[in-house]
């Protein structure tokens, strides 16, 4: 038994803020003349209301240092983007925070996007960092409804990185660019000391042309709309986890990295009822569903039985204790379409090899706004919330 006792400073701070908020809340109640909440059911509603308010309140980054959570695509990432980047750079073109910005230059409508690729390992079943760099950028443009045209490619190379590996990566990029119908028209090269850059980091920017009048965006989702996914989810993220070799698991999973321009074009041609398109990258399908719910202030109800997941991805996820809904894809799109147009949309996707296993996974509802629900295979319902950080494997 130890003699010393302390309390955690951060806990005291959190309690102090909470007490302050409570005092303000009671004061508001008194001012409005409303009764204090009684015990029992009313109390629970009050607590739930308070949580909702806290969720919708102004984002603030509470940490002093960046952690891996900030890069996972979940709540921490969103808070970082809103509290720091959006806060400083704020302008109407940035605010939608879609995958690409839609600009008007002269008479043309242009989509502009940027991405950085820091995946490790650089080479994995199904592709390499070069494939990701081209396809990922192309997909951000395609899901904005643009025809991808030009890419830039900036390389940050680690001292000691094998030139042969660089050759392979660039060859992949050439092939991917050809398949996607884009050209790499400018670039940059930097070299950093041994120990930085994990071998090779790639940064890209992409430009595409918007050739239609559609105003796509997740904020456009309406109750009654259908939610469609273009194929099985979680392939890429699980492939990377296994490829890191630390988990000693072998499985026939490959990354799903692919350019989605063709799928998008087919979809937009088949029906005018497309409201929004997103490619499901880090944070997985669950993150996109939450973005839709939040941006459009609608409910999203999806059905576990309808979500396509490959057996091996499911097996690996069960083994590790992670949920495929939160695992990154690199060649899957999520589409929100007018309920009446769902049939046409699905047919258009399934007509192409990449969309063979496209499926309607759920729909947009009016209630409860801002919340994503999952009807489980078992018949019950649960909430699919934004993850705080990376999906961590669990043993318990």
């Amino acid at each position, binding site marked *: 038994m130890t003699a010393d*006792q302390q309390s955690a400073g951060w806990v005291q701070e959190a309690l102090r803020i909470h007490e302050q908020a409570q005092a303000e809340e009671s004061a508001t109640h008194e001012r409005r003349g409303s009764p204090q909440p009684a015990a029992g059911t009313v109390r629970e509603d009050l607590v739930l209301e308070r949580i909702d308010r806290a969720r919708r309140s102004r984002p603030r980054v509470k940490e002093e240092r960046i952690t891996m959570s900030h890069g996972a695509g979940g709540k921490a990432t969103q808070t970082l983007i809103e509290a720091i980047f959006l806060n400083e750079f704020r302008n109407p073109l940035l605010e939608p925070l879609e995958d690409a910005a839609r600009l008007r230059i002269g008479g043309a409508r242009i989509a502009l996007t940027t991405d950085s690729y820091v995946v490790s390992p650089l080479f994995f079943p199904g592709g390499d960092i070069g494939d990701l760099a081209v396809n990922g950028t192309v997909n951000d443009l395609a899901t904005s409804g643009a025809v991808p045209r030009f890419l830039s490619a900036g390389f940050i190379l680690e001292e000691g990185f094998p030139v042969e590996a660089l050759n392979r990566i660039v060859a992949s990029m050439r092939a991917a660019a050809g398949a996607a119908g884009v050209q790499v028209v400018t670039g940059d090269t930097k070299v950093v000391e041994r120990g930085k850059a994990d071998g090779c980091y790639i940064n890209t920017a992409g430009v595409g042309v918007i050739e239609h009048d559609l105003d796509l965006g997740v904020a456009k989702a309406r109750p009654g709309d259908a939610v469609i996914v273009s194929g099985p989810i979680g392939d890429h993220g699980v492939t990377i986890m296994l490829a890191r070799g630390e988990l000693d698991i072998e499985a026939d999973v490959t990354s799903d990295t692919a350019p989605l321009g063709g799928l998008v074009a087919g979809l937009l041609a088949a029906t005018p009822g497309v409201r929004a398109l997103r490619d499901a990258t880090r944070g997985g399908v669950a993150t996109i569903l939450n973005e839709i719910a939040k941006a459009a202030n609608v409910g999203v109800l999806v059905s576990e039985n309808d979500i396509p997941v490959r057996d091996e991805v499911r097996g690996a996820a069960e083994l590790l204790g992670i949920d495929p809904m939160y695992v990154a894809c690199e060649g899957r799109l999520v589409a929100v379409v007018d309920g009446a147009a769902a049939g046409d949309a699905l047919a258009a996707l399934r007509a192409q090899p990449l969309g063979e296993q496209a499926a309607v996974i759920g729909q947009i509802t009016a209630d409860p706004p801002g919340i994503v629900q999952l009807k489980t295979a078992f018949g019950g319902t*649960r*909430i699919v919330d934004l993850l705080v*950080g990376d999906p961590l494997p669990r043993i318990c």
Partner: protein
Amino acid sequence: MRFVDEFRDADKAHALSAKITALCEPGRQYKLMEVCGGHTHTIYKHGLEDYLPEQITLVHGPGCPVCVIPMGRVDDAMALAAEPDVIMTSFGDMMRVPGSKGSFFDAKAHGTDIRMVYSPLDSLKIARKNPDKRVVFMAIGFETTAPSTAMTVLRAAAEGLTNFSIFCNHVTIIPAIKAILDSPDLRLDGFLGPGHVSTVIGCRPYEFIARDYGKPVVVAGFEPLDILQSIYMLMLQLAEGRSEIENQYSRVVPWDGNLVALKAIGQTMELRPYFEWRGLGFISHSALKVAEPYAQFDAERLFSVPGVRVADPKACQCGEVLKGVLKPWECKVFGTACTPETPIGTCMVSPEGACAAYYNYGRLTRQRVKEASRS
């Protein structure tokens, strides 16, 4: 997936649900405790509570071995990780548990070498690959996981490794259950017994619950149908006035447990006289430490650990939530000062903690119940 999908069949769930409801005495409320974090997870993940009548309340017990580690011990682990040349290895569950100065995750951001592993054997591998470093394995878990740690220590000994040790925080389930049974402010009707702990300790250790406290126990599996069937078996016992130990998870749990596993634990570990549980206070003979013959694998002996006790904040009501006296939303700091991102107490710390599970999964239960009663 075999042995999984068959136990997730929705039709059979409806049937079980009807039978469970039929066993409820009119006007009587039932409180059943599911001890195990994994059970809480399944219940929320599959929306199982939708299948239960309002008369039955499931109370989440202290079955999350990560959540019950006090802040002081987390600080100790962080101190170990910060030692020069130490590689700390840990399960994913532990990464976000906050001590008084942050979590493993935060320490990683500060440059500490902390690596996530899936198995203690992975930790051994890291030790072999890094002879110039000292590798510490953060050993957590109930009796389910202790045998794996024990086997790893035995293997390290067989290989003569000199740079591997464990920081032992294994806890045992029976004292925790007894602490709950002995609480004066408690009213429970029965228990869903921990499924995987029981593969190691068997079903006999629970006999005192039926014998001395008159409460029925059904050792339950982890698929949704397992849990529903176990609840059915508990309700049947209550309706028939029995209090016995039954094993629903018989396809996995042997009545006598796993002797090899128990021997491995007995060889490499011994019970601590007492151990502090976050939210439950000090419980005697409730945790394990490395036994003397294996001292060279005991991080607490190899390093000097601060050992400073950090008190549970007074506002934290985890104790009452753990004992089933309070529901998560009845805790004064639930959802405001204490959230999954800023968890104060054990119940919010891990996704299986009663409060985290409710925060993430159960918020809408109230609304649905209200709507259902209106329609």
